[in-house]
């Protein structure tokens, strides 16, 4: 089990008040901003930027840049690893 991905799920549930969801409900490849996935919106995208800074020390100042990174848990984890490695 990938602990970064587990952490991300926990953090997302908390940051976005996804009261009805548990970590097990979020698939690693589920599309976060798609109605078939989590159905998040542009306000959530901003909350995810805050989350990246708060928990992972990563600053992302251009919301456009987040679009690719925030596709799924998989892409978020990948983005964090890349930024930390850089």
């Amino acid at each position, binding site marked *: 089990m990938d602990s970064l991905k587990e952490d991300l799920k926990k953090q997302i549930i908390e*940051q*976005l*008040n*996804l*009261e*009805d969801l548990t970590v097990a409900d979020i698939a690693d490849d589920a599309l976060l901003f798609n109605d078939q996935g989590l*159905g998040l*919106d542009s*306000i959530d995208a*901003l*909350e995810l*930027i*805050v989350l990246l*800074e*708060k928990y992972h020390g990563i*600053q992302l100042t251009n919301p456009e840049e987040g679009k690719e990174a925030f596709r799924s848990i998989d892409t978020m984890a990948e983005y964090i690893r890349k930024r930390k490695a850089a």
Partner: protein
Amino acid sequence: MNKAALYITAASTVSHQPTFGNPGFSSTLGPIVADNALISPDYKAYIDPGLLRRMSKILRMAVACSKDCIAQAEIEQPDAIVVGTGLGCLHDTEKFLNTSLTVDGLLPPTSFIQSTHNTMAGQISLSIGNHGYNMTHTQNTLSFEHALLDASMLLREGDRHVLVGAADEHIDILEDIAAQLSFEAPARLTSGASFFVLSKENRGNAAAILTDVHTTGGIENAEAEIDAFLIRNGLNASDVDLVFHAGEPVQGVKGNVPYLPLSGVYATASAFALHYAVDSLQTNASLKNVLICNALRKSNLGLILLQSVEA
């Protein structure tokens, strides 16, 4: 001025009393006591989970009451949405204020977005997909009366059904502030939301007739103002069967009931009083003219006159 009658065709209240989805409640309520908590309906039955997860208490109350009203009135869409609130979305305001003063890094935006006074009216329009007139009045203890007056005007301008209501929410710091400012509340501080559908016609579902509504700020002589209001509606004080009042009782009428002990104290508690009065008119056939006299704040006077539908 001869004005056409306006009808209240739906009413819904979330409060510290069993008011929600409970017609006839007015005959059973006693004064609220310390352990009467806010009674929340199952919000999931009324609000889309995507919206619900972000909503504070005041938003949940307002949207649930609105949806309940629209169902009761059996209308697809109201032509307009008009909301009154004395202090607005306090929970999110305090939350963002706190964040802004204590967090150094990036700030989460959700509480800021939801701190604006018109979040309720906006969320209602979003929840039901309404593109009509959307207004928020915030005039202290008269916020609801101003909203009701606006709604009445809209119907006279041609609208058929207007969703109108008010809400205010309690947060803990209010207790501290009230104590520090030596505000002697006539009852405990509470939260509440009451919404109504005001309609141009009675399709057999009207619960009461809204005869008139009036607001005065910076008032000097409340008694003279009340007299003038009754006279312009062709009434004497003795024609009024019942007054629900915050502040002093009204002289010369058949009966007075203080409503703050029932609702608790919040800036738009007169909206609770309106629902209480509408419910009373439906359960008590002997009532004909009912007045709501709101002087919760002494310098502001709000008057709402109702008539029974059969009258």
